[in-house]
């Protein structure tokens, strides 16, 4: 077959134009239903701007589906350093998998940026482990690790992770802490803009694996990132809200999702 003929075939093929009305209606209803109505109906609790995909699939599909998925999942929730230490000091398959991922150059490159790789979940099935990891900002990577071969065999990126908004009090507190650093204060004094404060992933209060491939992550509110736009570049100031100190100042980098908007504003010092 000639290329032109193939192109003609592709261009002229009669294409399906399908619609499953009941799915469309149910999904729309689910999306647009007010949180109170969902709670009254016994569905998943809600938070502003975020939606539980478990609820979607429970509602659109069958309850049995979730039970089957849930039974197949071993979920390990890790509280940052303590849990990582647990993994690294334990000889379990999960510990091996976590260690392999943390040291894999390909994963490090995919995550971009700098700073420690945080393991947020390890799921072991036979000799393969699925490890979800990330840095304090940016996307998550899920890596499949051959435990016997101690190697990452495949990996994929989660581009959409649900980030709850930080409460106003925590946001203001984070900015105050960030401004305790003289260099940050100087940048702001010279016209640098402070962006919307982001939650940080170094501590995870809740993580749920939904539908086998969707992660819902609720970061703990003890740490946050204050973005500073100065001289055309974004600086990220990691602050510890509980201890009232700056953990790190990350130099300008670009691994934030292009679809996550950071709103910057000038504030009076």
């Amino acid at each position, binding site marked *: *077959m*000639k*290329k032109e003929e*193939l*192109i003609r*075939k*592709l*261009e002229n*093929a*009669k*294409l*399906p*134009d*399908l*619609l*499953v*009305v*009941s*799915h*469309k209606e149910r*999904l*729309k209803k689910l*999306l*647009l239903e*007010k949180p109170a109505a969902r709670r009254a109906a016994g569905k998943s609790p809600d938070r502003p*701007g*975020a*939606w539980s*995909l478990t609820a*979607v*699939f429970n509602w*659109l*599909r*069958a*309850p*049995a*589906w979730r039970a*089957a*998925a849930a039974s*197949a999942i071993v979920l390990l929730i890790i509280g940052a350093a303590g849990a990582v230490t647990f993994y690294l000091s334990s000889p379990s398959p999960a510990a091996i998998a976590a260690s392999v991922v943390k040291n894999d150059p390909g994963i490090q490159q995919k995550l971009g940026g700098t700073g420690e790789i945080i393991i947020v979940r390890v799921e072991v099935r036979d000799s393969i482990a699925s490890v979800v990891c990330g840095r304090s900002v940016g996307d998550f990577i899920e890596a499949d690790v051959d435990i016997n071969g101690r190697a990452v065999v*495949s990996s*994929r990126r989660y*581009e*959409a992770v*649900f*980030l709850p908004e930080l409460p106003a009090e925590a946001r203001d507190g984070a900015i105050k802490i960030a401004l305790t650093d003289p260099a940050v204060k100087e940048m702001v004094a010279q016209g640098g803009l402070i962006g919307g404060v982001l939650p940080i992933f170094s501590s995870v209060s809740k993580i749920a694996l939904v*539908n*086998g*491939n*969707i992660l819902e992550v609720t970061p703990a509110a003890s740490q946050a990132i204050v973005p500073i736009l100065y001289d055309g570049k974004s600086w990220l100031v990691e602050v510890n809200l509980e201890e009232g100190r700056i953990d790190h100042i990350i130099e300008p980098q670009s691994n934030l999702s*292009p*679809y*996550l*908007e950071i709103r910057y504003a000038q504030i009076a010092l």
Partner: protein
Amino acid sequence: MIRTDISPEEYALKAEGELVKRAQHSREAFGELYELHYQRIFNYAVKRTSNVQIALDITSVTFMKAFSQIKKYRWRDIPFAAWLYRIAGNEINDHFRREGRRPASIEQIAELADTNDYIDEINQAEEELSRHEEFLLLRQKLAELPTMYQEVIVLKFFEKKKIREMVNILGKKEGTIKSLIHRGLEKLKEKMQ
């Protein structure tokens, strides 16, 4: 009144921009976006997977993710559909990577779905799809190619997207997309021999 200082396309884009901004604060406005884009995203998923149930799953996830992220979405004078295509495309690619591990498939629908209407409708959609023999044959051959080629060929020939639109959807450079289409067609031609 139609303004004359901008083209209809620009006007439509501006109107969509306004709707997206409203949707960032209003469920009803998001509902309008949903009505505008649901069917095209579902059919894009059908064309990529040739499986109605998987396409429904992908459509659900796409809109739930869009709904969850809409407040953080940054309008950049690019049609909203590009973002939805991008989310759906990532879901589809992920589906292909994980094939065999996904628990749901069309065969399971009878025991999983909870209403007869829903099952009937899916069966009807499957039947309708099965009548598109030429498309299914092309899809079958396309499925033998790496996902990156499938993606560009479906977008260009089945979704009739221009290269400029594909740049927005895929986040790749124009030259890269042209090259992927060219190589994809060469590979598909070999499969069709």
